[in-house]
């Protein structure tokens, strides 16, 4: 890289941030050269966004910078006055946020929001400003730029909003761009486009970029250097190639191992036991110790120093202490194979969906008459045998969740038929539907809203049994279910807020299993979870299927999970199934153009290597 020898654009020195007793950022140092991308990688709550806000001096009022420095060019940012700092924000350093839907001012036109920056940092006003804003919108690939200038954020789609956001960040002609999870809120196909755009713009302008992400795929695609953060500390810094060829820190290695695409089908995913430590815990040693499978005796009480490895790779782990010769060659244990039990012999399909339609009415005019329909689900058909997994894949808004709810009659379908265990269930209501409710249950996406915060875990799990009259031995059943999903029986008396996201998802699974269903509809059950936790849940679902012969209708947008779990795949696009077949066929030889785009966009850091 040409910029390799030039002076760093941004240098973060031993930066620490304190909130109350907690230290979300603790002694973080790294540097970014012009034209280079440094990726901060970590799971939620590890302090990566806080680091970025600290660089911009935009920390929330409760947070304080307690130590360290940030040098931008030749300036020490922490020593600037607020007025001088304002010139750096937007002028020297631009920033893009995760959620384009809320990060733009809803009542100000896109043009005005961009012109505001132009006025502030370049002194452009009126005609020239508008001209420049239009050029910027064109540069970020927003079609019909002239018209967009006068539009408001709500008139743009998610991807367009993020492009407008990028245009705004670029308007001040910054030398450094901070992108905080710039694509997390976007669909896979859009993610690829936005990342490509960022890369292009970076090359064009020679900008440095601080990229904050939890996604190894994004890192692989974008970064020159990678910094892995865990619980407020950087634990590994390395050039991308070296990081991907040989991740050193046990945490980094586990992150790779937990990716579904790493393990072949029928193998368990590696998981990281335990949880990320709470913010206010005082650490004396390495923070990863309690979850580390290779921890040494002194890991828990001595903070490791940085140890250099080949090239520029550096790692903060005692295993790489040159004095502990021989240990640094530890290699991840190979994934353990799952015992594949013979699948339940299927006697005809368990679930049969024919031409299912859900149309939402559009009301207009004075009397709110129905003038048309939005076909959310527009005639989909598939069948699912007992003990098998069908993945329903598609992007947000394609109707996959609506389809799942319509199958369970949570939303009344407007047409088509759903047969469950040979019985037609569309049109059934009330008591007639009850016996069928026991056969099919649902696991939802958001572990935080899927459990009633006011009920104890036991009561949550008991709800279905009570509603469906399966009240024999309820207490024992609840205990058994909790153990089945990897929790302890005594947790039944606790409340949801005491559990982490992954644990809550286990409880939600136990709740669904309580009525002995044959079919589970899983609506993105892992998309709100961190990679390491996602692996735990996927393993659990896999085990349960083996043991109980469950059929899964797996609704997801994550191709890696599909690849790992599904027997069959149905690809949904705008309310229709555009491709349907066995997982091997569809993933290896996608026929439909949309499936191809989807697969191409779903970059997997290990696809090439595996």
């Amino acid at each position: 890289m040409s910029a390799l020898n030039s002076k760093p654009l941004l240098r973060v020195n031993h930066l620490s941030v304190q909130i109350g007793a907690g230290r979300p950022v603790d002694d973080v140092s790294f540097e970014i050269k012009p034209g280079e991308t440094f990726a901060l990688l970590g799971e939620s709550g590890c302090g990566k966004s806080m680091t970025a806000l600290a660089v911009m001096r935009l920390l929330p009022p409760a947070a304080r910078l307690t130590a360290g420095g940030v040098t931008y060019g030749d300036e020490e940012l922490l020593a600037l006055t607020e007025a001088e700092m304002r010139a750096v924000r937007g002028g020297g350093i631009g920033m893009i946020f995760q959620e384009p839907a809320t990060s733009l001012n809803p009542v100000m036109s896109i043009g005005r929001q961009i012109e505001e920056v132009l006025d502030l940092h370049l002194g452009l006003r009126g005609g020239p400003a508008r001209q420049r804003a239009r050029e910027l919108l064109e540069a970020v690939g927003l079609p019909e730029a002239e018209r967009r200038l006068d539009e408001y954020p709500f008139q743009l789609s998610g991807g367009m909003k993020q492009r407008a956001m990028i245009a705004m960040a670029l308007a001040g002609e910054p030398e450094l761009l901070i992108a905080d999870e710039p694509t997390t809120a976007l669909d896979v196909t859009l993610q690829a486009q936005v990342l490509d755009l960022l890369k292009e713009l970076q090359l064009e302008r020679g900008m440095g970029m601080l990229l904050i992400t939890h996604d190894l795929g994004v890192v692989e695609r974008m970064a020159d250097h990678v910094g892995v953060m865990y619980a407020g500390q950087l634990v590994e810094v390395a050039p991308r190639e070296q990081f991907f060829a040989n991740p050193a820190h046990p945490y980094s290695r586990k992150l790779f191992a937990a990716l579904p695409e790493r393990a072949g089908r029928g193998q368990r995913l590696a998981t990281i036991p335990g949880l990320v430590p709470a913010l206010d815990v005082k650490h004396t040693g390495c923070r990863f110790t309690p979850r580390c499978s290779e921890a040494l005796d002194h890991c828990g009480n001595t903070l490791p120093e940085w140890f250099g490895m080949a090239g520029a790779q550096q790692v903060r782990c005692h295993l790489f202490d040159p004095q502990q010769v021989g240990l640094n060659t530890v290699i991840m244990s190979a994934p353990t194979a799952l015992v594949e039990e013979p699948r339940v012999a299927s006697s005809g399909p368990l679930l049969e969906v024919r031409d299912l339609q859900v149309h939402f009415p559009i009301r207009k005019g004075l009397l709110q008459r129905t003038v048309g329909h939005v076909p959310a689900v527009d005639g989909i058909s598939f069948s699912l045998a007992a003990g098998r997994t069908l993945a329903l894949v598609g992007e947000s808004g394609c109707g996959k969740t609506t389809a799942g709810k319509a199958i369970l009659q949570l939303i009344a379908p407007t047409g088509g038929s759903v047969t469950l265990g040979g019985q037609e269930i569309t049109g059934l209501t009330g008591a007639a539907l009850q016996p069928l409710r026991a056969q099919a249950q649902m696991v939802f996406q958001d572990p935080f809203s899927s459990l009633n915060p006011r009920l104890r875990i036991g009561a949550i799990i008991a709800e279905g049994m009570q509603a469906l009259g399966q009240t024999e031995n309820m207490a024992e059943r609840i205990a058994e279910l909790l153990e089945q999903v990897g929790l302890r029986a005594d947790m039944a008396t606790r409340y949801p807020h005491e559990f982490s996201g992954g644990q809550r998802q286990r409880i939600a699974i136990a709740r669904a299993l309580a009525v002995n269903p044959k079919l589970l509809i899983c609506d993105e059950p892992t998309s709100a979870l961190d990679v390491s936790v996602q692996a735990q849940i996927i393993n659990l679902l896999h085990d349960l299927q083996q043991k109980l012969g469950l059929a899964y209708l797996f609704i997801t947008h994550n191709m890696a999970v599909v690849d790992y779990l599904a027997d069959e795949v149905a690809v949904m696009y705008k309310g229709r199934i555009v491709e349907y077949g066995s997982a091997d066929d569809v993933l290896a030889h996608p026929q439909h153009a949309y499936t191809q785009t989807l697969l191409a966009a779903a970059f997997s850091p290990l696809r090439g290597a595996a």
Partner: protein
Amino acid sequence: MKFVLLWSDLLFFLLVAICIGGAWWAYRSPQLAASWRQVGASRSGVAAATVLVCFVLVALLDSVHYRERLPAQPGADAGATVQYAVEVKSALDALLSKQKTNTEKTYSAPLATHLFAKESRADGQGRDYPRLKFGGSHLADPALSEADVRERATFGLIAGLSIWGFLAFVIRRYAQPRAPWFAWNALIWTLAGIVVIVSVVLALMPYYHVFGTDKVGNDVLYLTLKSIRTALMIGTLTTLAMLPAALLLGILAGYKGGWIDDLIQYVYTVLNSIPGVLLIAAAILMMQVVIDAHPEWFATAAERADARLLSLCLIMGITSWTGLCRLLRAETLKLRELEFVQAARAFGVSGFSIMARHILPNVMHIVMISVVMDFSGLVLAEAVLSYVGIGVDPSTISFGTMINAARMELAREPMVWWSLISAFCFMFVLVLAANLFADVVRDAFDPRGRAA
């Protein structure tokens, strides 16, 4: 003696019981306990709650009503029916019997020994300020009153300080170690103020009209203390009256949607569209007609005044439930889409159970917040309504009737300021405490506030 349970007493006791039951429930549910703990840890919250508890105690005392047994008629045989006095008294009246019965002729200043206005002397020798019948009547020489007041006040102060010292010691020694998170300091310092003021007043009360007397010679302190019950009744019973309707309709509208939602929204828009004061005025005027048309319904004047108080609560409830109903509807709309409700629906749980098990407990914090937030507004509203003439029965003692009676006194020369000032002080302290408490409760229970 025969106990009389007025409807408002019953409801008020019921409300106190609900609060105690609610506290027990909150104690058992960890989230609620955590929120209350936050209230308990807040200094302004504890101070405000202490003041409010004192007001509630006064109101409770004033809610134990009875009718005295009249002495048996001489010559009547033992089997004759016992006669009871027509007047309904409360426990507070009994405690303040000196203040209640020893009325003066007209105005007298606080702690005065003489009337405020000159009168012709009994001996016909010009005009003079006559001695009070009660205030300072134990003194042979009224000129000594200043020294006497000082002496008694000092005694009260010392007694108060020692009682406070004892209380503070007990709290520090026994209560504080058990719950170190609680804002005990705030409690102790608030108690200091309350105990000292109360004991000074108590020391002077048997001998003087501490806050003076009003136009017809009633003791102002007595009037002010009696007003507390009315204010608390209005502030709490109104909420109690509107709560069931607001909860039921709000949740129903939000959860069921469709025509039920349209109908409920229509009803509350209609009620909302009539300016509150006018609706209350219209309803009270009509209620007045009903009460006047049926004198046989009420055995005593107290019962009639009580009916009027309750109907005022009810009517204010009807005009004010719409706000809470709308909030609950909006929140239910949000909750309805949440996944735990969807999960319950996937089990075929009935709509009623979902509303009762999943929605109701999750909107209770809104109810809680709006109840405490509304309280102070209602207390203030009572004063205005009573002033306008559509508030409580004119015979009911309330801040509103006191202010109404006193408002022209500032124009007198020399000015009569004490009844207005005492009504002002008590009302200000009550409403301020309620407002501060409401703020703390809202911060503790509103999930939005916690994020900020």
